[in-house]
């Protein structure tokens, strides 16, 4: 079907001045009018927390929602390694343009130039803002901020707070948020889950939520809705995400008309603790920052795999990243490093149980710097590794394996961060905008805070200026209808009373997605998944057992609702993966690779964003946003 191309609303003019021009041309809302606008912010992570705090500070009436018991527990808290910014404090040749270029290239040329440039441009102000709110970044003895390196870059531009950067950034945003809560400018609704989006006359005007303590379903109306609900990596069941991370908020918006962009672009992180057994509930990341000092290797010979690593001689080790990518070495980007680990293991040279692991070895770094220095840099990660595996990584190499970590796909947004549904804005990991087909390390924190602190406060007024505030109330028929649908769904889930647990369905879906739509994909596998998912979904709706009642705290019901959405969304991911007949970034189609096994892009036919429109009872419709590169030259991504 032919559909018109999507308009990204990218401002005209040279790349370097687009954002400044945009800000100058933007509409302003007078201070006394701001409080008449109610903004619903779903999510309190870096994106939502920063947006809610800043918009409230500017005078808007803000309501903020999260499913945890406190805004401070959003999953941004778990980010370890760091946040990028083009400060060039190290004087090593960094610049806004270099950060922009690295990010575009890192994304394998599947992101929108103007958005990425803006991200790089505001990155510097993020660090200033964080320091001003008291984020205790690592410092050098001279009192200035310290930096480390992350994958896909040859400069040192990553700011960090030990191995807890996300925690400190989030607590910074949270402190600004609670200040506004105390001032009465933000009303916070913790333990509240968004279950539907309400659209009135084509505009997003509210949400339906379930109070997770009382189980009561109710509506909130507003003049704009900001979805800052994070990523959907849990579609794979096992991932580095928190257990509650879900696709529900964005998927419900999709079902109400918002386009879902590039759903198949998922990031498999190379350095996670390998799966140990089928009881396992999640996977734990070992920060990419470890690759600053750790060397990745597997034995050259299969026979050596079972030997203790210390007994494998230096010349019998294959430091495969250093061998294949000499100029980036162990800091090759994530998609490439993950795929190389998979190749080594597929080749029978993996280590540890099941042969699904590679070594990350610190022996050289410890010899060079001493154990105390390594401890200061990564102590908490080594401790966590020991708690989980019972092994001491100061004495023997870590065993790591790739795991699902981040989702580049998300709801489609234009330059304003507004979806195709007027009024619906999407920030942070929940949107698709900045990372193309692969995200570079330390750039999600940057994007979340950029969107929340510095972009949305400038772009939202352009929408608000076009609507009269407070026109829709939660007793409008559209709200009643959406509430009724939510209640009906709950009733249905509780009434099936089948034989299988929610988790058993989630695990089965996850395995299927990992096998067919994970690190490597191909037509046959994807077609198989597209056949299997609807069957599994049908079984879910006829044989799941959800105990308890609707109007109480009911964790099984919460899970069931999320898994029901994953069971639909997984299909959209596979469809997107099947449709994109090229390899790019984290999307590796085995049919499309170079002779030496690298991703083979097809710029003539696939230099576009896939934006899927939901069609009730039919196949989703694909809309394309062509990616036009005016500044960078599309090139084969090389890290050799």
């Amino acid at each position: 079907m032919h559909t018109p191309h999507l308009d990204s609303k990218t401002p005209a003019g040279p790349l370097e001045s687009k954002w400044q021009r945009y800000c100058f041309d933007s509409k302003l809302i007078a201070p006394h009018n701001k409080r008449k606008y109610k903004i619903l912010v779903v999510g309190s992570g870096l994106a939502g927390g920063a947006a809610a705090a800043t918009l409230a500070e500017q005078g808007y009436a803000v309501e903020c929602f999260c499913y945890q018991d406190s805004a401070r527990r959003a999953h941004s808290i778990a980010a370890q390694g760091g946040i990028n910014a083009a400060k060039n404090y190290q004087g090593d040749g960094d610049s806004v343009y270099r950060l922009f270029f690295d990010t575009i290239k890192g994304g394998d040329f599947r992101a929108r130039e103007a958005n990425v440039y803006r991200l790089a441009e505001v990155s510097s102000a993020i660090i200033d803002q964080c320091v001003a709110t008291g984020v205790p970044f690592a410092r050098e003895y001279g009192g200035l901020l310290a930096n480390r390196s992350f994958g896909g870059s040859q400069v040192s531009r990553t700011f960090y707070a030990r191995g807890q950067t996300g925690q400190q950034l989030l607590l910074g945003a949270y402190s600004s948020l609670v200040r506004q809560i105390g001032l009465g400018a933000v009303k916070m609704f913790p333990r509240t889950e968004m279950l539907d989006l309400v659209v009135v006359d084509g505009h997003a005007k509210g949400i339906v939520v379930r109070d997770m303590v009382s189980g009561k379903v109710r509506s909130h109306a507003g003049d704009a809705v900001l979805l800052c609900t994070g990523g959907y990596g849990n579609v794979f069941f096992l991932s580095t995400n928190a257990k509650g991370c879900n696709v529900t908020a964005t998927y419900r918006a999709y079902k109400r008309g918002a386009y879902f962009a590039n759903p198949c672009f998922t990031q498999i992180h190379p350095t996670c603790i390998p799966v140990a057994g089928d009881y396992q509930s999640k996977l734990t990341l070992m920060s990419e920052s470890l690759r600053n000092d750790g060397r990745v290797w597997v034995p050259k010979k299969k026979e050596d795999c079972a030997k203790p690593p210390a007994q494998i001689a230096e010349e019998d080790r294959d430091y495969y990243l250093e061998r294949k990518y000499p100029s980036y070495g162990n800091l090759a980007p994530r998609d490439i490093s993950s795929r190389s680990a998979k190749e080594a293991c597929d080749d029978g040279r993996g280590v540890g149980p099941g042969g699904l692991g590679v070594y990350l070895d610190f022996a050289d770094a410890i010899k060079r710097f001493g154990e105390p220095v390594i401890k200061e840099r990564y102590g908490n990660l080594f401790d966590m590794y020991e708690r989980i595996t019972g092994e001491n990584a100061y004495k023997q190499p870590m065993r790591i394996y790739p795991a699902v970590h981040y989702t580049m796909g998300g709801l489609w947004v234009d330059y304003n961060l507004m979806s195709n549904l007027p009024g619906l804005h999407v920030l942070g990991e929940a949107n698709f905008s900045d990372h193309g087909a692969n995200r570079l390390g330390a750039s999600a924190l940057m994007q979340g805070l950029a969107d929340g602190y510095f972009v949305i406060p400038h772009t939202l007024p352009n929408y608000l200026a076009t609507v009269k505030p407070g026109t829709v109330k939660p007793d409008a028929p559209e709200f009643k209808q959406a509430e009724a649908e939510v209640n009906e769904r709950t009733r249905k889930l509780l009434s099936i009373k089948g034989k299988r647990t929610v988790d058993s369905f989630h695990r089965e879906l996850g395995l299927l997605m990992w096998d067919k739509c994970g690190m490597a994909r191909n037509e046959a596998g994807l077609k198989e998944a597209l056949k299997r998912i609807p069957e599994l979904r049908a079984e879910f709706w006829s044989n799941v057992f959800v105990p308890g009642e609707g109007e109480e705290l009911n964790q099984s019901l919460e899970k069931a609702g999320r898994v029901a959405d994953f069971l639909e969304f997984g299909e959209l991911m596979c469809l997107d993966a099947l449709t994109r007949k090229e390899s790019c970034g984290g999307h590796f189609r085995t049919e499309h690779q170079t002779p030496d096994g690298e991703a083979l892009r097809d710029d003539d036919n696939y230099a576009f964003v896939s934006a899927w429109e939901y069609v009730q009872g039919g196949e989703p419709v694909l809309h394309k946003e062509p990616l036009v590169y005016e500044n960078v030259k599309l090139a084969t991504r090389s890290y050799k």
Partner: protein
Amino acid sequence: MHRKTMNFTLRVWRQKSANAAGRFVDYPARNIPDEASFLEMLDIVNEELEARGEEPIAFDHDCREGICGMCSLVINGLAHGPNGSHATTCQLYMRLFDDGSTIYVEPFRATPFPIIKDLVVHRAALDRIQQAGGFISNRTGSAVDANANPVSKRDADGAMDAAACIGCGACVAACPNASAMLFVGAKVTHFARLPQGQPERDRRVLAMVGQMDKEGFGNCSNHYECEAVCPAEIKVDVIAHLNRDFDIAKLKSATVGV
């Protein structure tokens, strides 16, 4: 794939709702891999309960990597379980327990943390304490360059040590007086060690302590149980810091004003 499995008897606090009476109920936990975490062990028990058509045990959790502060159990009488490991419940592994033993599982108990259901409690009181003053008032976009004010590594590290608090409330649950001094002290110390934190230093400590008292948290009488259970290894020094800052701020408020 896993090598060793273990068996336990769980004695778990079940409480249908905030106002219902609670009681301990025994559940067998069978064939638990020694590599499973405490919460994965509960997952296995819950799956069995559900398979039998019973209601699973409700407990709070999210990140399962020891950082979000959401998990909150008292295990064998200790907040976050056998200590010495300085880990949250989600980072506790079954290999630490004796095969065949009986394990008591209770919610965090403190008057300011009312029970919602089973092992799930309300900890919004901690948010309200931070709301009262646990922040630096700066407008987004008004900051000076991040390197404009150098901070000694000693102070930056000291601030980070205190800022590492995950806000789980184990300190409160472990304290015989249900004191929140470790939590408040950590936040006050974090900001007090940084130049940005100075302008509001006095107001902050007065406001946070005022709210802490209002919420019904008890006083510190030097039991140090809080430090012993803290998964973020916050030291009781922050309480000394808090007391000193509080005294100075009170004196100032009585004289020059804060």
